[in-house]
């Protein structure tokens, strides 16, 4: 199996564009807003792109949503991704 290098981490989240990805499960609709508020408070100029932009990452359309993800993330100039909820 090919071993891949993880993406380079960011120095800080200030002025970065963060995408939320959600599998439509386990109260993500309750917790992602809290995460957004906290990121905004901690880091100046951080911008969140909501999970609605990317589709449900689990379930019937999963394969299609995941396959489109790299392009969608690049198109929206996303710097970092927060994905949930694995429960």
């Amino acid at each position, binding site marked *: 199996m090919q071993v891949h290098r993880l*993406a380079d981490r960011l120095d800080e*989240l200030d002025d970065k564009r963060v995408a939320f*990805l959600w599998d439509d499960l386990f109260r993500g609709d309750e917790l992602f807003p809290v995460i957004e508020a906290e990121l905004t408070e901690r880091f100046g100029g951080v911008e969140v792109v909501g999970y609605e932009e990317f589709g449900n990452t689990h379930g019937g359309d999963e394969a299609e949503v995941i396959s489109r993800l790299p392009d969608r993330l690049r198109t929206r100039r996303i710097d970092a991704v*927060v994905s949930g909820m694995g429960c």
Partner: protein
Amino acid sequence: MRASIAAERAGIPSVSIVCEGFDKQARATGRGHGFDGLALAVLRGHVDARTHVDNVADLLAHTMDEIVAGLTHRAIDGSPGAGGPIEPTALDVVASGTIDEINRRFVEEGWSDGLPIIPPTRDRVEKLIGDSGHDPWKTLGTAKSSGRDLTVWSVAVNAVMAGCHPDQLPILLALTEILADPSYGAEHSGNTTGADALVIFSGPSAREFGLNSGQGALREGTHANTAVGRWLRLYLRNVYGFTADEHDKATFGNSARVVLAEDWDTLTEIGWEPVSADFGGSVGNDAVTMARMNSGLIIGSVVGSTPEEILPYLADGLVRVSGWDLTHVHGLGQGHYRPLLILAPVLARVFASSGWSKSDVGTALFEQARLPAWKFEKLIGEWSRLTPGNPRMADLALDGHIPTVFGTSDDPHRLIPLVTSPDHFVIAVAGDPNRTNAYVMSNDGPHGHWTSRPVDRTKADNLACRLPSPPSSGV
């Protein structure tokens, strides 16, 4: 994790939020895709067993810092990990000794299902592949969970362990093709609700394969049914990595399911098509069809000599076996709920003698197997939280997410169907030919979706090489 892996693959740092207890599975999934050391942010406990206030408090106290650390240089240096422990290559001798010593070793290593195995010596594995003509190193796909190759050799190794015979190899290869098919969704085989795959064999050669389709169907005791079912579980353990240490998060599992063989003689007599025909198979050819199934329910002692008298029993059973799984109608799945109804031959004949086809039975069940809209909404929304927003079925129908039959009015007590189309009931014929019993099972939607493959017993011509020249990966 697969979403995070896609982001990392695109060069974008990611962090995955998981509940406590999911970190092992999450890391194993990352390793299986070649991304060792994916960043995780862990929520304490399980979100559904805590109040919103408690969830937010823990998120702010612990998980937020892990989210930030996971995306920044503070936690991860970005270098590729070791990819997990080094695995033996295909021809390595991993154990030697007496039969007892070998079995003890296999149990200790987690390579067996807990029952004694036949040691997969090179000689036995080669004999199992025998003169089938298959190249032992031919790859049928990749296990999405572990990243291991699905080789003819690994199929045969686990077949020897399960006690399979060489003539069963075509069945096992067909099942491996199903596992490799993205539409089946084998990577979900370790989800928490613990569904297990059911294999249905359809075709004229059931008897030749030694498969039981009659009395005691679904019970171990007939070699072919039992050994093939055991092979599947071993293959999911040893090649896909569905063990508690890696990818299996089943809260409650099911025992390895023995193969259900359809009663070919009865199907032929009454002119009904086999299950495989529902999924693209050719009638008259041998095929295996597989799906992961959740709950099962016996419908005992059905009384009736006409379809109209029998149908209420069957409809009631289908309703009773369907609970949270209805989220595969809308939510987790989208039109993926396709429960199974197994009719004993005597019941199938009641329908057939009245001129009913399987399609007619499905149409009647679509009308009769219904439950109140309010309960459907509770099951997929509030009572499982598996469909966000507690949607109303009438609204979903209005918005075109589900067929209009689900939204004929706003009356919460109106009865709505279990499935999105009458042909979504999967109907098989098997079991004791003279008892009026039936069995129903709910399925796990896209987490092991109904998929069929022909069983091809013709000698393969892909033998490109002979031993020894294995690739460098996996058992």
